[in-house]
């Protein structure tokens, strides 16, 4: 049995590990054109800023793959020959498979802006992009970033590190306020401005100007403002990378359509991670998850299914984390999901950038947000999974305290304020 996995990101690698654990004798090949070895994609920014080298971002020593008998193949797949069960490779012989996992991840969104394909205009997703950024920022004094998500703010931090002035165009009223509640979003927006970044809210890109030789020279906003720049970062979200399946018989929606066992409509072909769209059996919303953690979980389950286990993916309690410049953020459960009947209790430190949000429906807690405070994942997950009440959560908030030793403790202060709000609401 030969399993081929396209993509050595976290989903592909997690699948390979599951398969090896369950099927010691199967042949496993991981194919990627980007790099031979798996690296941590979220660490791209740290390579650029000199915190780490590329080799430091590899989660496993190179010898690991030999030991695990997982073959690594550095090649670009250019097509899937479904009928003959083989992959077409760029400048190489076709690669036959018995079962195939597509884990090609995402691509940066481009919305057909005039000038979006000029030199100096780029996204930030891969090593290719990082290499391009290195070249693009050699002579750059000013850059414009379009789109205010997590990648946008990372790119802003990277460019600022290089001494480049950054204008950050955000379509929303406040940074990432389509995901963050108003107060948290305001907190991050204030921080971005405080650090000297030109944040322009409710501003979209109209077009990018050509300098006459195919290079970007300025950005013009929807309000007609012209910002001269040498680099334009397009970070208006990501979409499933469907390059390989677009012209095949493999069914796609926004992503590659799969069931909860990550099977596509085609025998022996599976898809997992960012590129997969899990079809809801009950006619509800399909599931498209595009963060590191879900890639890891989806890949692990997909691998088990491929290895012959009977498994069904359960997304569990949602969680995520990020860092906005120097502000840490953790979220658990449903915050900003616009659940009917949701309300929230919110505490924010009067001076420090620290906040706690408890989202609840009636007296049941459905989500938690932490800004500038570290909280213990299993505790939050346990509460939300068990449908804990607001009183239980407030009484036990200190149990999930994950702040470093000697760090200022905020439990008492936060709980006092949250409890007062909760009592006020009951009365």
């Amino acid at each position, binding site marked *: 049995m030969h399993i081929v996995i396209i993509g050595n990101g976290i989903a592909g690698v997690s699948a390979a590990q599951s398969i090896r654990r369950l099927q010691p004798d199967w042949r496993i090949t991981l194919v990627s054109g980007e790099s031979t070895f798996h690296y941590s994609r*979220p660490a791209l920014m740290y390579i650029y800023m*000199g915190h780490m080298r590329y080799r430091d971002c590899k989660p496993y020593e190179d010898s690991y793959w030999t030991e695990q008998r997982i073959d690594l193949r550095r090649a670009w797949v250019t097509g899937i020959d479904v009928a003959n069960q083989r992959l077409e490779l760029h400048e190489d012989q076709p690669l036959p498979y018995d079962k195939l996992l597509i884990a090609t991840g995402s691509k940066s969104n481009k919305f057909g802006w005039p000038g979006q394909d000029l030199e100096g205009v780029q996204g930030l997703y891969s090593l290719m992009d990082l290499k391009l950024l290195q070249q693009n920022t*050699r002579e750059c004094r000013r850059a414009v970033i379009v789109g205010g998500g997590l990648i946008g703010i990372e790119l802003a931090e*990277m460019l600022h590190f290089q*001494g480049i002035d950054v204008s950050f165009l955000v379509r929303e009223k406040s940074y990432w306020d389509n995901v963050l509640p108003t107060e948290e979003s305001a907190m991050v927006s204030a921080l971005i401005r405080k650090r000297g970044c030109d944040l322009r809210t409710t501003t979209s890109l109209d077009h990018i100007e050509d300098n006459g030789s195919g290079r970007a020279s300025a950005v013009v906003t929807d309000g007609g403002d012209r910002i001269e720049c040498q680099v334009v970062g397009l970070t208006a979200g990501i979409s499933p990378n469907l390059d390989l399946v677009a012209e095949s018989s493999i069914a796609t929606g926004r992503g590659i359509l799969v069931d909860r066992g990550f099977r596509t409509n085609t025998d022996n072909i599976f898809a997992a991670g960012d590129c997969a769209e899990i079809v809801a059996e009950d006619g509800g919303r399909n599931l498209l998850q595009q963060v590191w*953690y879900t890639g890891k979980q989806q890949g692990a389950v997909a691998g088990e299914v491929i290895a012959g286990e009977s498994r069904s993916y359960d997304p569990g309690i949602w969680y995520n984390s990020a860092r906005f410049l*120097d502000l840490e953020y*953790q979220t658990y459960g449903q915050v900003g999901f616009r659940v009917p009947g949701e309300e929230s209790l919110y505490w924010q430190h009067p001076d420090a950038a620290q906040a706690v949000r408890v989202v609840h429906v009636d007296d049941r807690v459905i989500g938690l947000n932490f800004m500038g405070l570290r909280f213990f994942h299993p505790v939050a997950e346990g509460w939300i999974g068990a449908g804990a009440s607001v009183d239980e959560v407030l009484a036990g908030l200190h149990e999930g305290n994950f702040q*470093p030793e000697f760090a200022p403790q905020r439990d008492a202060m936060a709980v006092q304020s949250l409890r007062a709000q909760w009592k006020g609401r009951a009365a």
Partner: protein
Amino acid sequence: MIDARTLSYDFDEEAGDLGPETRPSSGPGFGGGHAESQNDGVFFGSMTARGVAGWIAGLLLTAFYVVLYWWPQYLDAGVGLVDPLARGLSGQPADRWFLYGLLYTGAILVFGVRMLRKYRHVRYEQLRTLSVMFFQLGFAFLIPQILKALNEPEYYFSYFWPLKPEYLQPWNVDYLLQHPGRLGVFMVVWGAVMSFVAVPLLTHRFGKRWYCSWVCGCGGLAETLGDQWRQLSSKSRLSWWIERVVIYGVLVLVVLTTALLWINYSSGGSMFSSASGALAKWYGFYIGALFSGVVGVGFYPILGSRVWCRFGCPMAAILGIFQKFFSRFRIRTNGGQCMSCGNCSTYCEMGIDVRAYAQRGENIVRASCVGCGICSAVCPRGVLQLSTDGSFGDRYPGSERPLDALIATLANAPKQGHYGTEE
């Protein structure tokens, strides 16, 4: 279809570095005060990434130790310069060891201030740095000088056997006991109590960090002067293997040396007389001078800041055994929040692949961890927490008693997979 630009991409994984080609002069980035942002440009710096400056610094540091041990006459000018200070403190003339102590203490204080600034938002790092500065200045510099001024034995209350093997060797114990006054007796009792009572108790409560990164002078220098080079320690499994062989080898050697000296002493010099003396001398030269000084500090800019602590120190070896099997200390991982970026492993001066545990959601319970806390400070997702709470079973899932864990570790040793026992 994949576009042509992608197909023409040619990233060289061996060369592999993708930062800007020149280190920007703009200073720290947006991250501002955050501990992690203090690492901006570390791998572009000549001094911090084994560039020319790093090699020169390494050569100079090494040369200083070589001169100190073997050609002290070249330090005469420096010794002369600090002579008034020595006379002021102890009433006695300066020698090269006074000069060395002064430089050593100065380095810890100056680079300690740098550390305090760098980690101004991480209180654990601040307290720890103040602590090593205090112990170096007071216990390892001023008190010994004052003792000399009072005609008492020169004694370092912050160093114990086996880091200072002579403190439990017969000739020194004899000397202290026979010294007029009661202070000598106190020193012998202090040394024995610290080595055999305080070490297990404090390590059980706090982990080996109470000594290695709060008190010890070697640790103090590594954590202050050496901090800029912490990222250069090797994280390979090979280096971990070498570490275990060498450090426990040194421990066996120092125990053996001490035992032979005492057997010889109690037999009135009839057993192992020349052998034990020769072994002690050999140990003093190769381990005490060559390893802890020349390699341990001289190679900071090449091998990272904790070479001696990681590969050589017998004290660290003992503390490590207690930490691994009889301590409440461990680093907790925050559930599934790790995204494998590698900052923790990169900045671990002890060469622990912290990420290997964190990405599996496991606690980090390693003998070598000195509890410096930097992994927790540089983690961009708040995944790591130094902790002394919780039960033993919480540290070692599946084994409720220390001995079970010890036996399991020994039994599984040959079968261990890539990291620990998985796979």
